C-alpha cells in the first residue's frame, strides 16, 4: 500500500515481518520490538502491540525466547511503570510454554518488571498472576510460579502473605518432581523475603520436607538451599536447624547428594559459624574425604585448602592432614589431581615447620605421580609454597619432574609445562634457570608439534621480559638465531616468529644490530613461505627501529621481495611497503 511514507517503510516491513514465514525474519522483527513500539507510540503499543504479542504464543521457541527477553525491558515503551502491568499477560503465557529456557527467561523478565512496579499494581496484578500460575493445570506454569514469589511476597497484605506461604508449601509437595525442584531452587530467594517469625516455623518445615524428598534431584537442590537459608537465620537457629540437616546429608545414601555437600561445605561452614564447624562439620568433612565414591573425594579434595583456612592450624594438622596423606596415594588419578591443584595453598595455613615436616613429603610424592596432570597441578601453584619454605628445598625434586614433563610424549602436557616456565623462572631465579632449564626452552623450539613451537617462541619472549635484554642477549638470542639454519623450513619459520616476538622486548639497538641481519638474510631463502613471513616480520619491525634503518635496510629488502616470482610473497611484501609508507607519512 503506497500510502506509507517513505521513511516509515522499513518499520512497516519490520511490523509485517512479525508474521513472516521465515523464522529468521520473525526473530529479527522481535529483536527490534522497541523500534516498532516507538513507531506505534506508547498508547498503541499498550492497546495493540502487546495484545498482538500475547496471541503469538505458539511460535517457535527461538522467537518466544527473544520475545520473553525483549518484554523484560519494555517498560519505557508502554509509558513507564504506571503501565507496566500491561506487560504481564504476554509474559504469563510465556511462563507456561514447554521449553525450559523460554520459561526461565519469562520468569526473569517478570521479576525484573515486578521489581519496578508500584506497590498497588503488584497487589492488583502481580500477586494474582503468581497465584494463577501456581494453580496452573500443567506443571510448566507451576514451575514458573516458584521463581516469582519473592517479588510478590513483600508487598502483599497479611492475608495474602499467609496464602502465598501456604501455596509455596503446596508447591513443595507437588506431584511432579519438576515443580518440587523449582520450589527447592527458589526457596532461598523466597525465604529472604519472609519475616523471621515465619522463617523459623513455616519455611523451615518446608525445607525439612524437601530434605527428605524421594527424588535425589530434589534433595540435591535442597543441599544448595542450606547455605542460603543458614545465612538468613540467627546463628543459634542455624545450628539447631541447618546443622543436623547438613550432617545428615553428608551421610546420605546417594553419592550425588554427598558430592553436593562436599562441594558446598565451605559455604555451609560460613553459615553455621566457626564453633560448630570445628565440632560438627570437621568430622563430616573427614568422612567425605574418605568417601568410597571417587567423585565425592574429588569434590572434597578440591576444597581442602579453603576448609583448612577456616580452621586453626592444630586442628588442620590433626584432623585434615592425615586424610590428605591418604588422598595423595588415592587409587583415582582424578582425586590426586584435584588434591594437587589445591594442596599448595595449605602451606601458608600450616606454617613453615608443619609444611616442611608434613606437606613437603606429600608434594614430593605428587610430583613423582605417574599421571602428568597431577604433576602439572603441583607445578602450577609453585609460587604459593615458595613463599613459605623457599625454593631450595623443592628444587632438587622439582627439576626431574619438570624435565620429565617437558619430554612427555603427549604434546598437551608439554604445552602445559611450557606455559608455567616463566612462573618457574621467576621463582627459581636466573642462576638455577640458566643451568637447568635454558636448554629445554631451546629444545621446544624444535618440537615436532606446531603448537609447542608456537608456545616455545612465546616462552622465549616472556623469559626475555622476565630477565631483561642483557640476559637474553647472552642466553637466548644466539641460540635462537643459530637455529635459522635448520634444514626444515617449518623450523626456520618458528625462528622468524620468535624474532618478531623478541624484537619489541630487546629494543631498537639490539634489533638493528643482531636480529635484523638474520631476517634480511632469510629473505633470500629458497622457500616462498619463509620469504613472505620475512615480509610480515619486517613489517612488524618497522615501528621498532629507526627511520633511517627502514630506509636503508628494510625497504630495499621489501622492494626486492615485491618483485618475487611468487604471488604470495609479492602480496605480503607490497602490504609491508604500504604500511611503511603510512608510518612515514604520519611521522
Amino acid at each position, binding site marked *: 500500500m503506497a500510502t506509507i511514507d517513505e521513511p516509515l517503510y*522499513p518499520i512497516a516491513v519490520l511490523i*509485517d515481518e512479525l508474521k513472516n514465514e521465515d523464522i529468521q525474519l520473525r526473530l529479527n*522483527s522481535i529483536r527490534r520490538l522497541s523500534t516498532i513500539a516507538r513507531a506505534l507510540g506508547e498508547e498503541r503499543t499498550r492497546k495493540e502491540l502487546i495484545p498482538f504479542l500475547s496471541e503469538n504464543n505458539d511460535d517457535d521457541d527461538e522467537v518466544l525466547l527473544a520475545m520473553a527477553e525483549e518484554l523484560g525491558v519494555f517498560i519505557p515503551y508502554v509509558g513507564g511503570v504506571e503501565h507496566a502491568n500491561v506487560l504481564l499477560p504476554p509474559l504469563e503465557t510465556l511462563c507456561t510454554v514447554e521449553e525450559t529456557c523460554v520459561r526461565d527467561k519469562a520468569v526473569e523478565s517478570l521479576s525484573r518488571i515486578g521489581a519496578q512496579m508500584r506497590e498497588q499494581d503488584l497487589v492488583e496484578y502481580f500477586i494474582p498472576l503468581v497465584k494463577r500460575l501456581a494453580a496452573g493445570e500443567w506443571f510448566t506454569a507451576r514451575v514458573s510460579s516458584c521463581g516469582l514469589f519473592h517479588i510478590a511476597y513483600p508487598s502483599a497484605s497479611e492475608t495474602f502473605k499467609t496464602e502465598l506461604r501456604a501455596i509455596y508449601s503446596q508447591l513443595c509437595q507437588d506431584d511432579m518432581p519438576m515443580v518440587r525442584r523449582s520450589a527447592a531452587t527458589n526457596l532461598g530467594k523466597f525465604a529472604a523475603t519472609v519475616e523471621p517469625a515465619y522463617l523459623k516455623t513455616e519455611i523451615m518445615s518446608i525445607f525439612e520436607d524437601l530434605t527428605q524428598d524421594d527424588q535425589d534431584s530434589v534433595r540435591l537442590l535442597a543441599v544448595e538451599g542450606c547455605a542460603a537459608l543458614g545465612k538468613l537465620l540467627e546463628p543459634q537457629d542455624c545450628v539447631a536447624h541447618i546443622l543436623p540437616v547438613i550432617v545428615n546429608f553428608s551421610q546420605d545414601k*546417594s553419592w550425588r547428594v554427598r558430592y553436593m555437600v562436599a562441594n558446598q561445605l565451605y559455604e555451609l561452614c560460613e553459615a553455621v559459624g566457626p564453633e560448630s564447624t570445628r565440632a560438627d562439620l570437621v568430622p563430616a568433612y573427614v568422612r567425605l574425604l574418605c568417601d568410597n565414591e571417587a567423585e565425592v573425594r574429588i569434590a572434597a579434595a578440591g576444597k581442602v585448602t579453603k576448609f583448612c583456612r577456616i580452621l586453626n592450624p592444630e586442628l588442620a594438622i590433626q584432623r585434615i592432614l592425615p586424610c590428605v596423606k591418604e588422598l595423595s596415594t588415592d587409587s583415582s588419578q582424578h582425586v590426586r589431581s584435584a588434591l594437587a591443584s589445591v594442596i599448595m595453598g595449605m602451606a601458608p595455613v600450616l606454617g613453615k615447620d608443619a609444611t616442611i615436616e608434613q606437606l613437603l613429603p606429600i608434594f614430593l610424592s605428587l610430583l613423582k605421580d605417574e599421571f602428568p596432570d597431577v604433576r602439572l597441578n603441583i607445578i602450577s601453584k609453585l609460587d604459593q609454597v615458595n613463599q613459605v619454605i623457599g625454593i631450595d628445598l623443592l628444587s632438587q625434586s622439582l627439576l626431574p619432574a619438570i624435565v620429565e614433563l617437558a619430554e612427555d610424549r603427549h604434546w598437551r602436557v608439554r604445552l602445559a609445562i611450557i606455559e608455567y616456565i616463566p612462573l618457574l623462572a621467576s621463582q627459581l631465579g636466573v642462576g638455577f634457570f640458566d643451568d637447568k632449564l635454558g636448554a629445554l626452552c631451546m629444545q621446544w623450539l624444535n618440537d615436532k608439534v606446531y603448537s609447542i613451537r608456537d608456545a616455545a617462541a612465546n616462552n622465549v619472549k616472556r623469559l626475555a621480559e622476565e630477565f631483561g635484554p642483557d640476559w637474553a642477549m647472552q642466553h637466548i638470542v644466539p641460540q635462537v638465531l643459530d637455529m635459522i639454519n635448520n634444514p626444515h623450513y617449518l623450523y626456520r619459520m618458528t625462528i622468524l616468529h620468535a624474532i618478531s616476538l623478541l624484537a619489541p622486548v630487546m629494543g631498537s639497538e639490539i634489533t638493528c644490530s643482531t636480529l635484523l641481519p638474520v631476517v634480511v638474510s632469510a629473505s633470500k631463502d629458497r622457500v616462498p613461505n619463509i620469504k613472505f613471513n620475512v615480509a610480515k616480520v619486517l613489517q612488524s619491525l618497522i615501528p621498532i627501529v629507526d627511520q633511517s634503518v627502514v630506509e636503508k635496510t628494510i625497504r630495499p629488502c621489501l622492494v626486492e621481495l615485491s618483485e618475487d616470482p611468487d604471488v604470495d610473497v609479492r602480496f605480503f611484501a607490497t602490504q609491508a611497503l604500504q604500511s611503511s609508507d603510512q608510518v612515514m607519512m604520519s611521522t
Partner: protein
Amino acid sequence: MNGGDEVAAAPSGPPQPLEWKFSQVFGERTAGEEVQEVDIISAIEFDKSGDHLATGDRGGRVVLFERTDTKDPGGSRRDLERMDYPISRHPEFRYKTEFQSHEPEFDYLKSLEIEEKINKIRWCQTANGALFLLSTNDKTIKFWKVQEKKIKKISDMNVDPSKAVSNGSVASSSNSNSAKQYLANGGWPEKSYGCPSNDFTFPPGGISSLRLPVVTSNETSLVARCRRVYAHAHDYHINSISNNSDGETFISADDLRINLWNLEISNQSFNIVDVKPANMEDLTEVITSAEFHPNHCNMLAYSSSRGSIRLIDLRQSALCDSHAKLFEEQEAPGSRSFFTEIIASISDIKFAKDGRHILSRDYMTLKLWDVNMDSGPVATFQVHEHLRPKLCDLYENDSIFDKFECCLSGDGLRVATGSYSNLFRVFGCGPGSAEATTLEASKNPMRRQVQTPSRPSRSLSSITRVVRRGAESPGVDANGNSFDFTTKLLHLAWHPTENSIACAAANSLYMYYA
C-alpha cells in the same frame, strides 16, 4: 507370590480368564498384498495415561494414535472411515499424525550403514497439551515435540505483499539490501532510508498510518518438531531407552554400555554401566534390555544375554558396574545342551507398574520376578515349550535369535508376549490363576486358540527325540498346528489402565480388548 496381595483378597478366588475381542486394525493387509520392508512395525508404546499410542517402523517413521472413546470425537478426520463407532467402553484409537523420525545414515569413520529402523519409543511428560516422545534407532536418540499449531492467515499488511513479490524478494526482508531492491525497481526515490537508526525521532503519539498485521486462524494442524538429538554416545547398537521418574533424565543402553542423559542436554551423557571387558575376546555377556524403576529414581534393571537381570542403585556409586541385586535362575544340572545359553538370553524386561515385579522374556518362557526375592522367579510361563524339539531348525534359520517383547497389564495381574504365526499369549499371574490364552493377531483372535497350559520343562531325553521328529515335519507342532517362522509377533503393548493390547503383525497394528 506376593505381588498381587491386594487383588488376591477378592473373595471369588482367581479372576476369570479374559475373553478377548477384536477392536481395531490399522494398516490391514489385503489378501495377497506384499508387505513392504519399511512398513514393518518395530516398536509400540502407550503413553502413561493410555490416551496415546505410538508405533515406529523400519522406515524410520513414528505414527501416533489417539484415543477417541474418552473424549468427544470432535470433527471427523482422516481414517475415520476405518472405524464404525459402536457405543463401547473399550479403548478405541484413531490415527493422529505421523512423522519421519530417522533417516538412513552412513558412518564414514566406521564404514557402517546406520538403519533408520526405530528400535524403541518412549513417551515423556506431557506439557501444555503438547506431546513429547523419545525415539531411537541403532545410534541416535531424538526428542520430539508434537503440538497443534494454528494455521495462520495474515491480512492487513503495511506493505502490499503482491508488490513485494513482484519485486523478486519474497515478502521483502528488513535488512538493508531490501532498500536497494526497491530502489532498483525505480519505485522509490533516492534518499537514504535504511533501517531507522536510533537518532530517527518518532512523534510522541506514534505514527498512525502503521498497523499490525491481522491474524486470523480457524484451523489447526499437528506439527512434529525434533527438539534435541542425542548422538555419538554409543559404539554399539542401542537396544533400549527408558525415562526416569524424576522427569529430567533418561538412560540409553547398547550391547555393552548404559548411558545416563539429561533430557535438556544433548551434548553430554554419563556412562553408568560398562560391561566391556579389556579384551573383547573375554566377552561372555551383552546387555539386551534396560529399564528404570517406575518410581524409584535411583533404581534401574538391565538384562543380559546369559539370562540374568541386574538391579543397580545409582546412589551407590557413579559407575554402577557392580550390581545391587542379581536375579538369575540356576539351570537344572544335567540339562545343558548346545542351545541352553542361546535360549537363556533375555530379550526384554519390564517393570510392573508398582515397581515390585519385573517381567522378563527369554526365548522359551516368560518369567516374573519379585525384586525382593533373588533366588528365583516367582512364576514361569512356558511360551515356546512346544518349539523345544525344533531348536535345531530355529537355530539354522536364525529364528532362535528373535527378540520377543513382553508386557504387563496395568493391574499387574496378567502378562503377555508374542510368538510365531502372528500369535500372542496372555497369562494370568495373579495367585491361583491358571489363565493361559493364545490369540492370533487377526480379526478373529480366538480362531487358532491352542490349549497349551503352562507345564514344567521336558527333560533332555525328549529333546533329542523330538528334534528328530521335528526335522521330519518342520513347522508343525505337537498339536498338529503349523507354525510360520516368518510371521512373528515381536512387539506388543498393554494399555496402562485397561485390558487392551496393541500388537504388531508385520505392518499391521491390531488392537484387542477384554
